[in-house]
C-alpha cells in the first residue's frame, strides 16, 4: 500500500521563496514610503509653521514701521509733553516736601494760653521749633501751654509730637516768668496745604 509523505511539498521552493521575497519587498516599500511620507509631513509642517511665523513677523514689522513713521511725525508733541512732565515733576517734588508754616503758626496760636506771651519763635525744616515767651503769674501757664500743645499728640496727624522745656526763670522785674522750649513737630502733618 502506497503511503503519502506529509513532509513532501509539491510547491517548488523557488515559488515560495519568490512569494516571500515579494512580500518582504512590498512590506519594505510600504514601510519606506510610509516613513518618507511621515518625514515629509513633519518636515513640511515645521517648515510651514516657520514660514507662517516669519510672515507674521514681516507683517508686524511693516506695521511697526508705519507706527514709527506716525510717531516721528508726532515727535514734537512728545518733546513738549516730556518737558512739561519734567517741570511738573520738579514742581510736585517741592509741593509735596515743603512745610506749610502758616498751618504751624495758626495751630500754635490756637494753643497758647491767655497768660502766655510768645516773644520769639524759630521755625525751620529740621523738625523742631524753638519757642521763647513769658508767662504770669507763675509756671502754671507754661505747663498748660505744654499740655495744650500735646493734647492730641497721640492722634494720627497731630502736629506737635513732643515738648521739651529748655529753660524757665523768674523775670528780673518779678512780674512773671520767662521760658524757652523745643517742640518736636510731625513733619508729615505739615506737608499738606493748610485749610484756610
Amino acid at each position, binding site marked *: 500500500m502506497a503511503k503519502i509523505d506529509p513532509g513532501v511539498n509539491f510547491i517548488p521552493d523557488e515559488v515560495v521563496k519568490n512569494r516571500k521575497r515579494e512580500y518582504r519587498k512590498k512590506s519594505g516599500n510600504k514601510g519606506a514610503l510610509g516613513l518618507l511620507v511621515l518625514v515629509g509631513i513633519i518636515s513640511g509642517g515645521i517648515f510651514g509653521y516657520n514660514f507662517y511665523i516669519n510672515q507674521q513677523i514681516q507683517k508686524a514689522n511693516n506695521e511697526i514701521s508705519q507706527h514709527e513713521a506716525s*510717531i516721528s511725525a508726532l*515727535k514734537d508733541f512728545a518733546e513738549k509733553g516730556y518737558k512739561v512732565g519734567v517741570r511738573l515733576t520738579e514742581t510736585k517734588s517741592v509741593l509735596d516736601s515743603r512745610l506749610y508754616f502758616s498751618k504751624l503758626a495758626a495751630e500754635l*496760636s490756637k494753643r497758647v494760653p491767655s497768660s502766655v506771651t510768645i516773644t520769639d519763635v524759630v521755625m525751620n525744616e529740621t523738625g523742631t521749633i524753638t519757642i521763647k515767651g513769658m508767662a504770669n503769674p507763675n509756671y502754671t501757664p507754661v505747663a498748660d501751654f505744654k499740655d495744650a500743645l500735646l493734647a492730641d499728640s497721640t492722634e494720627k496727624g497731630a502736629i506737635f509730637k513732643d515738648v521739651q522745656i529748655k529753660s524757665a526763670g523768674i523775670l528780673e522785674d518779678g512780674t512773671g516768668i520767662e521760658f524757652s522750649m523745643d517742640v518736636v513737630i510731625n513733619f508729615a502733618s505739615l506737608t499738606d496745604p493748610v485749610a484756610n
Partner: protein
Amino acid sequence: MSEEETNTNPSMNPSTATVPPELPPKHAKESIHIGLDSINIKSILDYLLVIISMVLSVVLIFVVAVPQFKKVSEIRKESAAVQIKLETAKVRQSYLESLSALKDQLDKNILVSRQAVPVESDVPYFLNQLVQMARDSSLHINAQTFTGVSAVAATKVVGAPVPDNKAADLVIGDPDAILGTDGIPQAPPVKASELVVNMEVVGRYEDLIKFSALVEDTRRIVRTKTVEITLLEKDASTATSEEEDPLVTEFGSDAILYTAKYTFAGYFLSEIDTSTLGIDTLVNKTNLEGVVARLEKLKYYEPEIFNVEIGKFNPFVNEDAGISTTSEPTTLTVPVEPATPIEPQL
C-alpha cells in the same frame, strides 16, 4: 511500475544516476559572471524604492526637519519680541495722537508748569512777587535780600516701561519711575536751581500767618526754609511820635507787632534739551494727574509793569531816574537821542 522499478530508474533517482560529465560550454565563465551581475542588479532594482525612500527621508530629516526645528524656538522668540514692539508702538502712537488732539490743553499745561517753575530765573519778578504778597498782608517790609542761586539735588529722569494711554495725562518724564527697563535710554539728570531770598517784615501775628499762607498759595512755587518771629518791643526813647515812627503810622500805637525774618527759596529750571533723547524716553511718562489742577488753584501774581526810561547823562546821579509806576503795560522808551551831545559838568 513497481517500487523497485521506480527506484532503479536512474532517471528518477539522481543520486544513483550516472551523469556523463559534460564539459563546460564555451564562454561558460563569462556566462556565469553575467548571471551574477544580473542577480545583483535585480536585487538592487527590487529594493530601489526602499533605498530611495530611506535616502530621501534622511535627506529631509537633516536638510529640512532638523534645521527648521532648531529655528522654531528662535522664531517664536522673535515673534514674541516683535509683537511686544508692535503693541508698544501702537500705544505710543495712540498716546501721541491723544496729545496732539489735546494740543490746547498741552499748551495750557506748559504755561502753568512754567509759571510754577520758570525757565529763566526771573529774579526781579520773584522779589516783586514777595513784595506784592507782603503788601497784600499789610506787612511793613524792613529788608529783602537776594542771596544767590544754588543748584538743588539732581533729579534723574528715566523711562518707564509702558506708557499709560490716558488722554487726560499730558505729562511725561518721571524721575521716580522704576528702573530696570532694558533698552530704554535714560535721560540726563535734570537740575532745578534755587533762588534764595531773605526777607524781614514787621506786622501783626495774624498778618504774618496770612503772609505765610499767601507765599504757600502762590503759583510760582516758593519753599519757606526758615521763619524767625520775634516780638517787637517798643522802645520809648526812639518811638516818640507817629510822624517819626512809620510803624506807628502804619499800625497804630497800640498794635502788638512782630518782626519776622524769612528765608525763601524759589526755583527755576532751564529748558530741557531733548535733541539727544530717543522716542522711547520721550514718551515714557508718569502719572502727574492733579499737579496741574493743583497749580491752577494757586494764585498767579502778574509781574508789575514799570515805565522805564532808558538812558541818563550821569549814571552816578539819581536825577529822578524817570521811573514811575503805571497800571497799564507800556513799552520801553529810549528818550536819549543819539545826536544829543553829552557835556560833562565842570
